[in-house]
């Protein structure tokens, strides 16, 4: 899973949608791999405005990449080739191949195996009205 994809992901549990702590998801026991792909400046240019910068900073820090600019590049900074190349490396070439993605709100963990994450929820966390109550109970139990 690339960091770009992870930036657009949150917890799949309906009750977590409103909770601020459900985003970003947190990588745990992440095994990283670098896979080089063609640099496509046009894409980076288009996608930066849609990136949640704070989310990216949190994730990158947790994975041990400290050198993320404090604020999202805008205007002229978007034409700086080095900045674009750094972001290309971080967003498109950095893969999490093994590990877990955890929700900061309910604590649910999504497994990542061979680069593929599984966001399918067990039925008791799915879409029923009383499931929200269940999630709370479940989350408390899980935190221990």
């Amino acid at each position, binding site marked *: *899973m*690339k960091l*770009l*994809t992870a930036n*657009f*992901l*949150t*917890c*799949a*549990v*309906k009750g977590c*949608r409103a909770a601020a702590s459900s*985003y970003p998801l947190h990588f745990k026991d992440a095994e990283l791999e670098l896979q080089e*792909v*063609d640099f*496509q400046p*046009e*894409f980076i*240019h*288009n*996608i930066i405005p*849609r990136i*949640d910068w704070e989310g990216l900073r949190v994730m990158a820090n947790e994975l041990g990449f400290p050198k993320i600019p404090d604020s999202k590049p805008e205007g002229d900074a978007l034409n700086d080739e080095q900045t674009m190349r750094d972001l290309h490396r971080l967003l*498109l070439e950095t893969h999490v191949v093994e590990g877990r993605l955890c929700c900061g709100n309910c604590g649910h*963990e*999504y497994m990542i195996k*061979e*680069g*593929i*994450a*599984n*966001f*399918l*929820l*067990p*039925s*008791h966390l*799915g*879409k*029923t009205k009383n499931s929200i109550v*269940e999630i709370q109970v*479940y989350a408390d139990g899980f935190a221990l």
Partner: protein
Amino acid sequence: MEYLIRFAQVHESFRQPEIQALADLAGIDLEFVYYDKYSPFCVIRVPDEAAARTLIARSILAKDIFELWGYGTNLDEVHADVRRRTTEARWADFQTDSFRFTVDSFAGKRSNDKKREIIQSFSFLGFQGPIRMKSPDQDFWVLEDYGWDVAATDAAAATPEGRSSTPILRPVPEGQEPKRIWFGRWLANSSRDVINKYDLKKRRYISTTSMDAELTLITANMAHAAPGKLFYDPFVGTGSFLVAMGHFGALNFGSDIDGRSFRGKEMIERGGTMGVLANFQQYEIVGQFLDVFSSDLTNTPLRAQPFLDGIVCDPPYGVREGLRVLGRREGLRNEEVIIDGVPAHLRPGYIAPKKPYGFEAMQNDILDFAARTLVIGGRMCMWMPTANDEDLELDTPMHPNLEVLSVSVQPFYNWSRRLITYRRLPEGQVSDVSKGRSRLDSEGVYADQLNSFRKKYFTKNPQYDNKEPRSGSATPAP
């Protein structure tokens, strides 16, 4: 300026929408001057030659484009029209160029002698250059349309015996004269040969439900797949759409409720390359592939904010593979399962339970999802099946934030499927949804009860067998 497009005579209802989508993508002012679904020839008006070349470059359903020099119902009219549309000064531009003339007849035939006679009749253009059959500087075409015998077949279709809305078309008998003739200077070929490159027969990873190369490439054109853009397929399967959009330079990711569909046997059994990735490798477009993951549209992990340039999908029809969503059928127990003190869903190899899903509910969920995640102007292309006896006018799923741009139909014997293209409207604009599909799924928990399309697909259509009025009770209870 007027230009002549020569289409392939296939997927007729997709041809104009594809050209229109390409014009919109390139910001070209396009007007259709002449179009007939039974003819491969179409006359358009675009500002200049460069626009004509740009327009055709990505097209899958067009074959090529010509600068239109003349039109008529017989050769004399064509000659007169050439003199009207072009000047002798224009002819002189090509006076010393090498050139070639070709006569192309649709639904008819010409003998070689007759072809030579036709070509000679254009000698008034005064070209002095050498005739060259391979890569000439200028390539002139006489394009004749004899016309299918449409009147006869339309009459047949109107009779009660006419089962299909697609009549059988026959070329006109030999010895007749064409109905229409165009004369033009060839400009450029389309991308039609790309179909061959992405042929499913030569693709590494496919399954029974992979969509063919031609239709996926057309879909990618309608969805405006292009460099710098981000696309998503929520029912990714073997990734046929992702590959087509990758061909046009977009970056893609997808998801599926069944992770086996995109992993493939190679990966599951032998630890080989993931199926969808293998296809991107085969076509050397790995840079256009982002990710795939397992998820379910009703419980999607994707954030509810505009970030997608496009969504392309062919949701399951529930005929070959059942419609499924996460959860348990009502009436079955629905609490956390604990095995050996560990919640079952945290154990390795856990498979989440799934329950049947309603056909209408799924479509509405897709539209809601698109409205939330598409950027302004972003497009969604969705395929959708219909039983042929359904009311087509009132049958397009709609959403106030999405404008329906085009609906194209691919007919089969007793059902058809449609490609619906939507555009995300800016905030503050709403589309008229009063004509949209407003049906709800019937009540029930089993696939046949929830999916009216599936039910009709497996039910003999009473309309074809007797004249009894249709009613819901024609279907035996499952």
